[in-house]
């Protein structure tokens, strides 16, 4: 099986599906001749030409807004937002049109499309090239939110997303775009939307994570083993729809919960997971539900490694829970 990284997985999924489905068009800033600032769309312009791979003007609301129009008319658009931090000029299009079109028209119209955006910290990008704003989208009914953590999942989830009937925010953890490599099968395969993955089995504590933080969680789990603690690690893969059953199974088994994400703590998606556990499984809990997250500040530049969740921080949370 070939070994590829996450950017390559994105690129492969797009390229292969564009060959199969001629309704797919890719649009965004620098996605064409340049191949994308992270090279995720490299080669597409050459293969599919300017009609299907469009370098757009610099206007996110134009990118998402016209993509919605294309989706309504039966194309299958894949707009790229260069960094998730730059999605806000399109926020009205997303909240007002993308998320609500099917509902507001009583099902007469719909607009499936996949908004791709690199997100998250760890690349020394400061405030505006590091944000994890997934929580905004999870609070916007009508959207699905998908976040892979490996090349396999990236390709499989992106293919599922391209074939899904609903609008999808597909967030790519850019910190591990190249750092994480993995094997993928030859040929076509998909990973279902709405199913979490048990990344590691353990009886003592559940660590729930997604995106780049999954790897922090896994490293912490390995390190905790030295102290005899066996962690169950759940890779959520999709935040909406959330695989609450997988989360509850893990929590019922361990009775201890740590949620890890990069986004600021207050009203981050960790809060939702915690709240669902407190609603549905409180009787299983052996201690508080802990969140290891970014702090409630804008994302700093020089000190980003202090801002971000890390293995020692997760270990400390494990220790706290085990001693509770």
């Amino acid at each position, binding site marked *: 099986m070939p070994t590829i990284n996450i950017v390559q997985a994105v690129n492969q999924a797009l390229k292969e599906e564009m060959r199969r489905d001629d309704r797919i*068009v890719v649009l965004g800033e620098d996605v064409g001749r340049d191949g994308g600032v992270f090279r995720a769309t490299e080669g597409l312009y050459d293969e599919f030409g300017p*009609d299907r791979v*469009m370098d*757009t*003007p610099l*206007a996110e*609301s*134009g990118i*998402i*807004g*016209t*993509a*919605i*129009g*294309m*989706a*309504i*008319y*039966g*194309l299958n*658009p894949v707009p790229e937002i260069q960094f998730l931090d730059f999605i806000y*000029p399109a926020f*009205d*299009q997303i909240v*007002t*049109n993308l998320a*609500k*079109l*099917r*509902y*507001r*028209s*009583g*099902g*007469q*119209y*719909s607009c499936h499309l996949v908004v791709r955006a690199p997100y998250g910290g760890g690349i020394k990008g400061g405030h505006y090239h590091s944000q994890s704003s997934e929580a905004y989208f999870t609070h916007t*009914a*009508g959207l*699905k939110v998908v976040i892979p953590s490996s090349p396999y999942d990236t390709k499989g989830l992106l293919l599922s997303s391209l074939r899904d*009937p*609903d609008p999808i925010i597909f967030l790519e953890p850019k910190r591990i775009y190249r750092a994480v490599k993995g094997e993928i099968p030859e040929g076509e395969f998909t990973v279902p939307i*709405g199913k979490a993955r048990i990344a590691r089995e353990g009886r003592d504590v559940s660590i729930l994570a997604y995106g780049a933080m999954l790897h922090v969680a896994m490293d912490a789990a390995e390190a905790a083993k030295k102290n005899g603690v066996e962690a169950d690690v759940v890779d959520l893969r999709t935040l909406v*729809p*959330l695989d*609450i059953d997988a989360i509850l199974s893990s929590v019922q088994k361990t009775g201890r919960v740590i949620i890890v994400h990069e986004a600021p703590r207050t009203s981050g998606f960790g809060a939702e997971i915690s709240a669902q556990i407190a609603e549905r499984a409180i009787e299983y809990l052996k201690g508080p539900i802990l969140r290891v997250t970014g702090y409630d500040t804008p994302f700093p530049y020089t000190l980003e490694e202090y801002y971000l969740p890390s293995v020692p921080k997760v270990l400390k949370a494990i220790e706290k829970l085990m001693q509770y």
Partner: protein
Amino acid sequence: MNSSHYLIDSGRRNRRFLTQTEQQEEQESLSHIEGDMLQVISLEGKINAQLEPKLSVEDLKKLYKTMVLTRVLDTKCMNMQRQGRIGFYVPCAGQEAAQIGSAFAATAEDWIVPTYRDQGVALIRGLDLRKLIAHLMGNSSDSMMGKQMPNHWGFSEIHFMSVASPIAAQLPVATGIAMSMKLKKKDTIVLAYHGDGATSEGDFHAAYNFAGVYKAPVIFICENNGWAISVPVARQTAAATLAIKAEAYGFDGVRVDGNDILAVYKATKLAIDRARSGGGPTMIECLTYRMGPHSTSDDPTKYRTKEEIEFWKKRDPIERFKNYLELRGVWNQDFENKARTVVDEEINRAIEEEEKIPPPETSSIFKDVYAEEPASLREQEKEELSYESSSKE
């Protein structure tokens, strides 16, 4: 394709909408309305034969009847809202020529991206009146399933896109639809409607700019009715006109007398022909007037003068067209009476029928959020239905 033959001028004046209470220096009298815009039927009833479209008597009658239908419906809906029979309403009286004249230039295969004020557009495209009334009532026959406020329509059977409230948000979507028509090599076009206030939003800018860059077959119909709720167009922008804005995006803007249905039709038809043959977008600024309040929640006496209302009453688009039809021998009092009777009956019957229709079922709240109802919503649906069953106990 050169369009200068109909592009009289994108105009230089839009200051006439200032009210007399306006304190700023730019105040001007209301007498500037004429000039710098395309007109076929002048106020005095003169016809510009060079521009006059050659429409059949049948078409002329259809246009007139639809204008009357739209106006009568408008009055009834305002009343129904006051009687509490519908929750809210946005009237369009005064803008019938701009709406019906422009939409009539499109074919049934062309797409419409309307606003909340474009009932005239829906009606000239043959929308079933009951569908319109059902929507205003939000009952279980409503195409929107009662999910949206009145005037937030969408009727796929006439390619009439679903409306959202946020001003100008429909415009990039319209451009996107037009871009895909071009990519799919269709020869259809999009008519995208918006108001004067909408020209200030960022989405206007993005939509126009993408349309210019991709030469998308979209015609923007700007219904410049002088006001964005209480804000006059002269406070909306310092631009000499709205039509001039099109130049910033590399295409033509045309200014027409929006109360002259033939002028609107003519300009739209030419723009559509150009778009269909690959010539790209056009903006058509229709100078018109909202004769009623912004909506049933608005009190326009706070911001407009009686003089202004009177000024525009004399420019009623229906009267203007009636004079033309009389001149052409199409209109007489008998025709008028019959038309009004038919329209009245049609509307009353539709209202009567739709008032019998029950509201949507509670579970409809949870449908059409996604293509398939996810487990989480099924759970919430059960939760909601449990309240209802327990309150019935």
